[in-house]
Each structure stands twice: as C-alpha cells, then as structure tokens.
C-alpha cells in the first residue's frame, strides 16, 4: 500500500515525505496521511506531529494570509501591486498577530580590509591628489563666501565637515564590542553625559545573555540623520523616568543601542524588519512558542511621548514577564533536581569506589596466596629433583671411589671418622692413598651408606647433568681444630698426614653465624667425646 502511494506522489511530494520521515521517523503510510492533511507542507506536518493536531495551522495561516498578516516563517510571495495594496492596509493598522516575530540572532560578517595591489594604488594616487586639491580649493572658496548672510552660507564654513554621531565619513567596520563602544561614545558626545546603560557588546552577545538569564532585551536603533532622532533621544529616551526604569536592575532589562550607519545595526534593522526610525523592539524568550525561541514582543516605531513609550514597554514586559517567571521557576526546579541527582551520583560513585577497593584487596590477597602456593610447589619439585640427582650422583661417585689400599701399603693415610649420630654408622676407620685429594675423603663419607649397603645397583656411568654436588657436612680434626675443605688439589697426605682422627659435622646450610655457633658447640662436644 505504501509503495502504491509512493508511486502516485509527485517528486516534490516525495521530497516532502522524505524530509518529514527523516525528522519524525514515522511510518510512511501515516506520514503520507498527515502530509495530505497538511497540504504537503513539511513544516506544518512536523508541527502537527510534535504539537498535536488540535489547532489547525493551515487554517490559521489561511486566515492570517486573508488578513494580510502573513507570518514571517512561511514563504512569502508578493508583487508590487499586492504590496502597494497591502502597505495601505498595513500602515494604517498596527499589525496584531497571535504569534510574535522571531528575533534573529545577528552576527555581522567581519570585513577584511586589504591594501590594493601597488599598481592599482599607483593608478589611484593622482585621484587622491586631485581630491585633496579640489577640497582645498572648495574650502578656500567657501571661506571667501563667508561674507554671505547666514541662511545662504553653506554649513561647511561654520561647522566644518560633520563628524561624530552625525558624520558618516570613515565609519570603518569594527568588532561588535568596539562598535558598541563607539556608539556609546558618540551618543555621549552628542547628547551630553547620561546614565543610559547601553550594553557593551554585539547584539548576538546581548541576545545570548537575555536568553540565558531570562532578561528583556531592548533593542534601540537610531538613524542619526533622521529628523526625529534628536527629539526622540532628548524627550523620550533621556527622560528621567525612562532612564531610571531601564536602569532598575529588578526590571531585568538589557539595553542594546545601535547606529544604523554601522553595518551591524543596519543588519539588525533589516532583520528586525524595521521600517521607521527611531525604532525600539522588546525582545524576550517566548516559551509558549518554543522553549528556546526569542520573540519580538513589542515594536515601538517613530517618535512618541515618554509616558507612552514607558507604558508600552511596561505593558509588553508585564504580559510576557509571567511566562518568563514560569520558565525561571522551572529552571530553578531543574537546577535543584540536577544538584540532587549529582549528589546522589557522587554518593553512589563513592560507595562504588569503596566496593571496588575491597574487591581489589581481596583479589590481591588471593593472588598472593596462590603465588606462595605455586612457589612452594615449585620449591618442592626442585628439591625432589635435587634429591633425585643427588642420589644419582652418589651412585655414580660411589663407583669411582678409590679402593682401600691393602694394609701392606705404607704410603697411606689412616683416617678414623666419627660419623654423625643420626647416620648410626658410629666410628669408621679407613685407609686412603696419600696422594688422594681431600675431595676423595668427602666423597667416601657422602657415599658411605651406598658403599656399606653393597647393593648390586645398576652401573651409573655418568654424573647427572647440571648438577654441582654440595657436601652437607664438614670434616674437621680435633685438637687443634682444623676444618678440611673438599678440595680436589690438596692431597690428603699434605693435609692430614699419616693418620687423623676426624669428625664429620652436619652443616644445616643456614647462615654463617649459626654454623659458627654450632662449630663452638661441636668443639665442646668433641672435647666431651674424647
């Protein structure tokens, strides 16, 4: 069904449908219906979609158009004849409409002044000279003419060329802030010191400020060459009542003034469709027509008495002040709610952080325990491997211990070894060749249990790889005490002599201090053993 509809639509209708669906994301069939009801105007259809359909904007627009009161939002076609007729009606009757005009936000384009090309500059130089020469001649001529009676005398003689507020020569385009400062300065020069609080900045800033702080923006546009400007300023704007009303901070007024000879103010004049000077517009947020919409709620054009001026402004401000107060209250409520929410959020964040910290500690403890366990396991494995290698080494070494020389041999060392208590071997005597290294004695002691068991173990042909054997005991002689190291170079004959009475001491592989103490204790023991 939707496809059939799409086939029947004209290209412009299809485009409208596409735009509408993009904005509202509505079903195509429904979109076609609502667009048909809105006579294929995308704006009206979207307005209907978001605002509900109880009010009929098409009928309103038609009614407004019939009353020559077309809202600016809709496209406006006009020709000369129509506008001739319309202006007749419009000028006689103040435009009254239910919707206020949108107050546009105006940001002037910054002009970049560049020096012209030097060739062009060279070509233009004679004109510059010509201009200055001509003006000099004219001045002289007019100075000569000053004998004329006052009404015939040109103004240029008496006053000089116009400068300041009324002068237009060399009005360079400045930044909005500087333009505002210049306007204020020229205004003061022209009308004397005053207390009118002009906003110092561009209209765009004033507009934003009024929107943000929910103030009334009073836009005053003046054309200094207009005949009514002087009387308007002197009698209306500088009226003490008006000045004090504008200055009163409780009235929430931002006053922005502009000279239409400046580009920004001229742009403002065109955008605010100002057709008569001096022009005053009251602009404020119009929440009923859009939450962020700034509307022109009052236009005051032409000269008028100060009381009228003031009462018109007051009337407009009273009418829209209620709406603004509503928005203000709403904003305060929102602010409170937001503060509450941020507090809640921060409390939640804090508790979350505490929980996270706890979880982290737990995790770390678990990891540490696991690491310790793993380490213990590794150590146990390493110890088992060591033990295994040690056994292998002992088996290998025991086969390579030099046999005991026969008793007839003279060049022997007779050694009496007192084995540690826990081996249960007691006292052993053995002969070694004199040229056997000290290490041989150590190996004998180490492998004594293997040798004494005399088991027919299988031949171990090689020592275990990556294994450095460490003797867990020391052999020492008593009186005088001397510890023999398991050296492979020193022979037993040199170290011990022909015979020795030696003690095997267990070494518990701890720190040296402990071994020292044990040594001392061992010595006592040796003495006791004697």
């Amino acid at each position, binding site marked *: 069904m939707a496809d059939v509809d799409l086939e029947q639509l004209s290209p412009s209708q299809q485009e409208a449908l596409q735009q509408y669906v993009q904005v509202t994301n509505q079903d195509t069939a429904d979109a076609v219906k609502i667009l048909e009801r809105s006579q294929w105007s995308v704006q009206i259809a979207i307005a209907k979609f978001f605002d509900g359909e109880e009010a009929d904007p098409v009928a309103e627009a038609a009614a407004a158009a019939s009353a020559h009161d077309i809202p600016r939002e809709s496209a406006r076609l*006009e020709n000369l004849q129509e*506008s*001739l007729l*319309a*202006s007749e009606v*419009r*000028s006689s009757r*103040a435009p*009254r409409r*239910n919707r206020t005009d949108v107050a546009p936000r105006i940001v*002037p*384009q910054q*002009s*970049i002044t*560049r020096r012209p090309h030097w060739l062009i500059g060279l070509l233009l130089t004679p004109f510059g000279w010509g201009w200055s020469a001509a003006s000099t001649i*004219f001045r002289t001529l*007019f100075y000569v003419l000053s004998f*004329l009676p*006052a*009404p*015939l*005398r*040109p*103004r*240029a003689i*008496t*006053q000089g*060329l*116009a400068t300041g507020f009324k002068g*237009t*020569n060399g*009005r360079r385009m400045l930044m909005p802030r500087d333009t505002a400062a210049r306007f204020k300065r020229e205004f003061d020069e022209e009308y004397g010191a005053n207390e009118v609080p002009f906003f110092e900045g561009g209209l765009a800033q004033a507009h934003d400020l009024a929107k943000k702080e929910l103030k009334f923006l009073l836009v005053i546009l003046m*054309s200094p*060459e*207009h*005949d*009514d400007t002087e009387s308007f300023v002197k009698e209306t704007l500088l009226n003490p009542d008006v000045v004090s009303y504008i200055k009163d901070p409780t009235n929430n007024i931002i006053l922005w003034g502009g000279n239409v*000879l*400046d*580009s920004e103010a*001229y*742009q403002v004049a*065109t955008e605010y*469709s*100002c*057709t*008569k*000077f001096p022009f005053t517009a009251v602009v404020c947020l119009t929440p*009923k027509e859009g939450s962020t919409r700034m509307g022109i709620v009052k236009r005051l*054009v032409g*000269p008028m*008495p100060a*009381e*009228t001026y003031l009462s018109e402004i007051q*009337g407009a401000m*009273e*009418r*829209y002040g*209620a*709406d603004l107060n509503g928005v203000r209250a709403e904003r305060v409520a929102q602010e409170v709610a937001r503060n509450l929410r941020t507090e809640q959020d921060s409390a939640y964040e804090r508790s979350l952080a505490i929980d996270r910290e706890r979880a982290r500690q737990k995790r770390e403890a678990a990891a540490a325990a696991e690491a310790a366990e793993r380490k213990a396991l590794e150590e146990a494995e390493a110890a088992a491997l060591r033990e295994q290698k040690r056994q292998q080494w002992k088996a290998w070494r025991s086969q390579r211990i030099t046999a005991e020389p026969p008793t007839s041999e003279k060049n022997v060392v007779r050694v009496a070894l007192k084995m540690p208590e826990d081996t249960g071997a007691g006292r052993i005597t053995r002969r070694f060749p004199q040229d056997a290294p000290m290490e041989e004695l150590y190996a004998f002691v180490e492998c004594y249990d293997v040798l004494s068991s005399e088991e027919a173990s299988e031949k171990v042909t090689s020592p275990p790889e990556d294994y450095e054997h460490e003797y867990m005991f020391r052999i020492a002689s008593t009186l005088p005490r001397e510890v023999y190291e398991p050296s492979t170079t020193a022979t037993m004959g040199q170290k011990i002599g022909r015979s020795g009475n030696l003690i095997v001491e267990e070494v518990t592989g701890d720190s040296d201090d402990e071994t020292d103490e044990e040594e001392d204790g061992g010595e006592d023991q040796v003495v006791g053993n004697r």
Partner: protein
Amino acid sequence: MSFTNTPVTRLILLGIVSASTLASLLDIKHYFYILVDTHVWRYRQLWRFLIYQLCYTNSTEVLFGVITLYQLRIVERMWGSRKYASFLVVSYLLTSIVPPSLTVVLRPLTAGWFNYIPAGPTPIIFAVLAQYHAMIPHLYKYRIATSQAPPTDEAFSGVTFSDKSLKYAIAVHLALLQWPGSLLGAIIGWVVGYSWREGLLPSSFVRWRMPGWMLGLRSQRRRSEFEGLRRMLEDEGSASTTGAATGAAQGQSANQPERRRTMGQQIMDQFRDVL
C-alpha cells in the same frame, strides 16, 4: 518591507510610471527633452528646464529608474519622509538648472557633442544614490576570483563586490543609456547629493523642510492627545483582562476590539473638532 513607511518613494514611482505612460499615450514626449541649439538658442523655451525631469521617454529607462528608486527607499526610511521629500525638492530645483546650463556652456567647447539632455529624473536618482552610498553600510562582501580560490587572502586575483554593488550597477546602466547627456546629469546629481550631505550648499537649502501638511503629518500635540486617550482605554481594557488572569495571547486578542474602538473614537474626535 515593501513600501511600508515610504510614502514619498511610492508616490514618485507611481508618478514616474504614469507620467511616462501618459506622455507616450498622448504623444507629447517631444516636450520633455532639451536640444540646446533648437530649444534654447532658437526658441528660448526655458520652461523645458523645469519639466525635463518629470518622465522618461523610453521604457528601459522607466524600468531601471523605477528599480533603482525602489531600492533606494531605505534612504527615505533612515531620513524620514519629510526630510526625504524636502531633499528631493531641493535637488530637483538644482538639477533642473545646473545640467542644462552646463550643457549650454559645454556645447561650444565640445563642438556640439553635448547638445542633448535626455528626459527623466536620472540626476535626482543619482543624488539619492550618493546618500545611499554614504549612509548604508554593506552587509557582506563576495569575491569573483579569476585565479584558483586560495585558502588565504594572499596572492588573490579577482574582483571584490559587496551586496550594494548590484544596485550601483543598475544605476550606472541607467546613467549610460542616453550617452553622454544622461551621464552628465548623473554626475551632476551625484555632486549635488554629496554637496547637500557635506554642507557645501547654503544652509537654508539643507535646513528647509516641506510643510508637514503636504505629507499628511499631524502635529505632535494632537497625536499626543490621541495617545493619552488610547492609553486610558487600554488601561481599562488591560485591567479587566488581567483581573480574569488570562494568558498573554488572550490578553492580546482581547485588546483588539479596544483598539478598534479607539480608532472609531479618533474619527469621532476629528468630526467633533470640525463641528
């Protein structure tokens, strides 16, 4: 915008169009231009000086003249209708005298080249254009580049225009349509406009204003009387509506009948004054 608050411009446009059409219809175009040798020297028709600006004699000039004047209506808005009308009258008088007199002088100097002054208010249009040039700031500028558009402003070749350029172009076209007489008129008009502006004319010319009744202006005193009356009625109306605590839109629509009654009241007042 259109013709809102520019009654003088509207009147002049209607006047130019209707006068030109009528001149064409009644076949009296030959009264509206000046040939120096025939009209001035032979027949002494000096009254032609005063009427040569009343209408154009061909439709192209009517079109461009009307377009230019329509676009210059902003000058009337910025000056007020009364000052604008006064300026037009003063410049009409000056441009009625100066260009023909100058042509009379220039004709022997240029061996008869300057002999013809075309009909039409081109000098006045240029006097207004001078005001436009001096008063109205440009809103934006655009450039037509003959080189590739550079990212910076350096080494740019091309022409820079502003939003006002097109209006000048149309006016220049108007000035060149009846070369050289129209160009002379345009230059004189521009000079008159700038002299008026810069105070080079006698101050009584600049200060002079048309009487208010000619433009339908009521005096300030009577207007303020009506204002007071209207305000009193509005106060009553707003008191009754705010008492019911209605919204802004309703208050506005409720004010409408009050205002209508006020206008009726004004008319009644006028009648009473007459009686």
